[in-house]
């Protein structure tokens, strides 16, 4: 993916640029609002990581609003030290696609960026999802592993659907909380892990190949080739 990073903090930028390059992405970096605006409007990117507060007279939100006004639909991940729910809503409403609060783990940033970049590629009007021999029918809400039918609770279905839609991508616990449960806060204990392990038991019996992998320091990944 070709990614534009607009971030003024030297250390944070270095850390992100290095991490993204190591993950195989091409990265352009702007350290102020003017340069960021210039690059974002003149080049074509697969995703933009945008800091909210920037020097140079133009802040992140202004850049996003300008881009959206010209019909540019590039996926944008907002980075911000402002964690208030209202700030978050403001950021997303201005046209950002996701919001990540500083400080953050790099795994979280990478996972969210991956999901954003991939979402722009694939359409969402599918009626079924498939990962290996695991098959989900979105209309009849039935799940099958090979010929074995799997019964899932509604929330488990939603969890699996999210994982299958992002098969091959790392999804973090926070992403699961936000997208499956709509919880935009950090539960004090790792309840999500228990949900995942329950789901794992249901989709993969002892005899079957495991599909749901735990990615250290990041989250989980559903993949057929593991």
């Amino acid at each position, binding site marked *: 993916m070709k990614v534009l990073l607009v971030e003024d903090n030297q250390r944070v930028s270095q850390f992100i640029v290095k991490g993204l390059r190591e993950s195989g992405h091409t990265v352009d970096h702007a350290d102020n609002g003017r340069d960021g605006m210039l690059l974002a409007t003149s080049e074509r990117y697969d995703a933009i990581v945008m800091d909210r507060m920037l020097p140079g007279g133009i802040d992140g939100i202004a850049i996003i609003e300008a881009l959206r006004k010209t019909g540019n639909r590039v996926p944008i991940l907002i980075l911000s030290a402002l964690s208030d729910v209202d700030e978050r809503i403001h950021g997303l409403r201005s046209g950002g696609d996701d919001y990540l609060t500083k*400080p953050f783990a790099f795994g979280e940033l990478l996972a969210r960026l991956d999901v954003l970049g991939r979402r722009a590629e694939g359409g969402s009007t599918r009626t079924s999802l498939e990962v290996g021999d695991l098959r989900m029918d979105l209309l009849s809400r039935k799940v099958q592993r090979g010929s074995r039918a799997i019964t899932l609770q509604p929330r488990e279905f939603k969890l699996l659907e999210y994982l299958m839609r992002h098969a091959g991508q790392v999804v973090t616990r926070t992403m699961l909380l936000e997208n499956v449960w709509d919880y935009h806060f950090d*539960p004090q204990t790792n*309840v999500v892990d228990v949900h995942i392990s329950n789901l794992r038991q249901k989709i993969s019996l002892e005899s079957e190949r495991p599909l749901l992998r735990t990615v250290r320091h990041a989250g989980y990944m559903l993949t057929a080739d593991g």
Partner: protein
Amino acid sequence: MVAEPRRRPRMRSSAALLAWSYAALGILALVLFAAPLLYTWEDVIDEGRLELLHEDSQRFASVYQHGGAGSLVDFINARMNIQFAGERILLLTDARHRPLAGNLAAWPAQAPEDAENFVASVEFAGHPTRAVFLHTRLPDGYHMLVGRDVAKFAPLQNRFWYGLVTAVAALALIGLLGGVLIRRVLLRRVYSIRQTVSAIMQGNLSHRLPPGRDGDELGTLAQTINGMLDQIEQLVHGVSNVSNAIAHDLRTPLAELRSRLEELALTRPPTPQVFTEIEAAIADVDRVIRVFNALLRLAEIDTGLRRSGFVTLDPVEIAAEAVEFYRPAAELKGVELAFRSPGPLHASGDPLLLAQAINNLLDNALKYVDAHGRITVEVSGLEQHVEIVVADNGPGIPDAEKPKVVERFYRGDVSRGTPGVGLGLSLVDAVAKLHRGTLTFADNHPGLQARLSLEQGVAGNAGAGGQARLARPPAPEAQPDAKAAGS
């Protein structure tokens, strides 16, 4: 000009100014009353005087008609002898103003030719006198002048003026004295308030204003200020408690982190061990970040601003979701998790915060309950309130500690050694307050019963966003602005 800080500063007293203004107003009223009175009074006197002169003149004229000029001269001379000097001025002249009889030496020089009555200064009985004259033309060209001394009423007039001036002076004096007195009394009390407030500004928050007499304005003000000071003292006390707690709860992981890194720098262990240490260091940092996030969230709730984003929600649905969220974790621990509700309810609130509050209560219960314990979540709708009760059969909280558990960073004896930053129940309490409700604890015999009570509120801004403020908006233009519609 350098003001001496130790002296009582001279200030413009608004109370004294008010008193003086009233005195000035009194004086003005007095003058306004006296001026027309004086005018009317002088008018009446003038008219009365003229009437007397007319009577005299008619009498003399009739003497002249009956007996002619000689008879009138005799009559006048006779009158001159019996009347008091100065009371009446008389003069009879021929056609060329030559005196024939009377007590005036000559025709007054200032006398106008045509006027019937006039005022003139004349030499009378050896004194210059101002008098009113009535001029009568008798047949055959004789002139008769009848006059009276104006100065006769002067003492009365003077007395009037003296009276007026005395009254004005008295009013002015009373006003001045009153102003000074009021100013002094008021200043004394204001000064005591100033002293107290100065002491408070220097950091001694326990000072209170003297209450003064009940019901008077300054007393009421003092009471209000004292109430405010109570509140401030409580808040400051709370802040210092929190600072101490922050110092403890942030310093501990920071100290661990620092020593970990320092040791790493000093000992330079083999690479695999370095990685383990770095991971532990990241965990330390994450702990600090969690405390910060919890504090920020609390601060966000405490400002009360979130109330503008209230929507109509179903607390039963939110609680049920929270219970389902925790069910796998409860099952893993072998804890029985039961949920009871009367069916859908309505309340006005912030769904995200309410979910977090119920999650925290559940988390707390699950943390302390033994394996194979029981947790019951019950939602019930009362008349004005919705109650969410999370009950467990864990160790519970001693009565003495119950009010303290919602304090920030408070960790009971039972909770030592368990994960958590000590802010979970503070958040629930803050959320309850935001929803004009309460968080109370009771015994569950055995265990703990946490009762979160929320005011149902008015479903005023229903539909102005609803769940949308939680979900990611698909496109900015398609999203109704919940914030604008809610406020």
